[in-house]
């Protein structure tokens, strides 16, 4: 692995000061900072290769098309898809999941069938399924968590049944950090005849992704949570599903022949990419993949596990602090939610912000989970490969002062 200093040097955003203090960025589950390689790739595309891909037989048009399709192939290899035709570029994981809900859910799910979600789903993998359930007369069922914030096998067997048409679940919770045993859940779902949709937005930057080993039917993620640009995301889908589905958005690019009354659609993956795509974003995402692979996801995971384990230990030393999530770094990702007794998370965020520390406060787009946990909101710190133990120490020291600011003795 590269040295930590060498890695941090590649992130210009990390060198700045806020309120005169060095920025300590611990909101990586929301979005990661961007390395120079990605910034350069995006800029170079705009400076030298910008053209509308797949149209026009001129030099730049060919260059833009090549860059865009190379990016697709790189993504396919990165997640081990069988082919680039199974990789659809979207604007983010949310759009990818909506694509599945509209194009698959709205036509394949019927009345009285069941859609199974995990209670920890992000709204992006929950609200679209509520729409499908309501429109089709299907029933939403939830997988609830055990006391240690894990998913028990008995819960899986209880909730996923022959009635289940579709299971939608994140590989890693953006609130609890729990990494779910998806390979087993997917195999069990398939045994019951269900299709399984995976939200990989949180897991992709931290774990090696292999959609074929997982046997996921659909897998969605965002570029900006894995050091790439905002506005680019990916939907992987098994070819058999994608071919049987209708387009999501309609317009240019996604067509074959357009008559006055009817249209035939382009082949995969273009059928699902209406309009001029975000080539700059795709190029940036490809550069982010190169960046991650240069370091190796195995090393990233080992390093981040170390940070998580260290932070879990240090946070438990903070008086009045309660962690929502497993206390052992094993089986979880680098996302830690907590509450400080007597302090609203928004006040916590403001107070540590004054020390230059960026953390997230709120419901983290997971309101049903918050209600289930009995917490209207939590504070959350989340790590990336550039964070350090010193930053964790600074955060813990700042957290120890929060209660005093809010008028509690200690």
């Amino acid at each position, binding site marked *: 692995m590269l040295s930590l200093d060498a890695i941090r040097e590649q992130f210009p955003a990390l060198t700045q000061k806020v*309120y005169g203090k060095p920025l300590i960025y611990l909101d990586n589950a929301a979005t990661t900072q961007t390395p120079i390689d990605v910034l350069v790739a995006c800029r170079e595309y705009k400076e030298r290769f910008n053209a509308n891909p797949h149209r026009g037989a001129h030099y730049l048009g060919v260059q833009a098309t090549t860059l865009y399709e190379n990016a697709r192939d790189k993504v396919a290899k990165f997640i081990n898809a069988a082919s680039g035709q199974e990789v659809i570029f979207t604007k983010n994981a949310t759009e990818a999941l909506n694509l599945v809900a509209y194009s698959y859910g709205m036509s394949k799910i019927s009345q009285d069938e069941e859609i199974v979600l995990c209670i920890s789903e992000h709204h992006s993998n929950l609200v679209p399924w509520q729409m499908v359930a309501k429109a089709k007369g299907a029933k939403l069922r939830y997988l609830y968590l055990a006391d240690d914030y894990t998913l028990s096998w008995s819960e899986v067997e209880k909730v996923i049944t022959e009635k289940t048409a579709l299971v939608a679940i994140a590989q890693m919770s953006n609130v609890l950090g729990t990494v779910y045993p998806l390979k087993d859940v997917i195999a069990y779902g398939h045994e019951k005849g269900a299709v399984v949709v995976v939200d990989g937005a949180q897991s992709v930057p931290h774990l090696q992704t292999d959609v074929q080993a997982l046997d996921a039917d659909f897998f969605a993620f965002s570029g900006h949570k894995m050091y790439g640009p905002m506005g680019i995301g990916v939907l992987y889908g098994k070819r058999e599903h994608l071919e049987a589905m209708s387009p999501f958005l309609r317009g240019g690019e996604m067509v074959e022949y357009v008559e006055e009354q009817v249209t035939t659609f382009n082949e995969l993956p273009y059928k699902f990419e209406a309009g001029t795509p975000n080539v700059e974003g795709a190029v940036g995402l490809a550069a982010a993949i190169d960046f991650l692979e240069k370091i190796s996801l195995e090393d990233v995971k080992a390093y981040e596990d170390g940070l998580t384990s260290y932070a879990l230990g240090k946070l438990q030393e903070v008086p009045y602090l309660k962690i929502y999530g497993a206390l052992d770094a094993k089986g979880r990702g680098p996302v830690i939610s907590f509450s400080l007794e007597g302090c*609203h998370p928004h006040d916590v965020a403001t107070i540590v912000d004054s020390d230059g520390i960026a953390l997230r406060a709120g419901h983290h787009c997971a309101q049903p989970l918050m209600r289930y946990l009995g917490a209207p909101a939590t504070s959350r710190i989340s790590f990336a490969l550039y964070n350090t133990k010193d930053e964790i120490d600074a955060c813990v020291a700042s957290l120890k002062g929060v209660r005093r600011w*809010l008028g509690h003795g200690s």
Partner: protein
Amino acid sequence: MDLSALYTELILEHSQKSEHKRQLKTSTCSERGHNPSCGDDITIELLVEDGKIVDAAFTGSGCAISQASTSMMIDLIKGRSAEEAQTLANIFLGMIKREISSEAELELLEEAIAFQNVSNMPARVKCAVLAWHTLTEAMKEL
């Protein structure tokens, strides 16, 4: 950023033990206000007789800023007419949006002028204004 200008003793006092945090036995109107992004969730109840707010209270949960702002607002509007309360809400919202800066007008807000600093903190503006928007909505029922 100066935290002591935000978490003043006055604001902390109101956020921690407000005498107005209770339920009214009878109310003329009530309204729930919610900041979905941070989880502030309050319900304001008013008892209005002959156009006068004779009693007011709130329930719910939220950050120190939203709780204190609600409490100080109730302090201010109790005993006033609905019209006066609306005028004060408009002044408060104008203060936070930096549209009102006349000392004479701002002084009408009494203790609630303590939130003037929030206008420099975009991330906390929604917390400070929640109660006042909720009050405006509640009084539409009158």
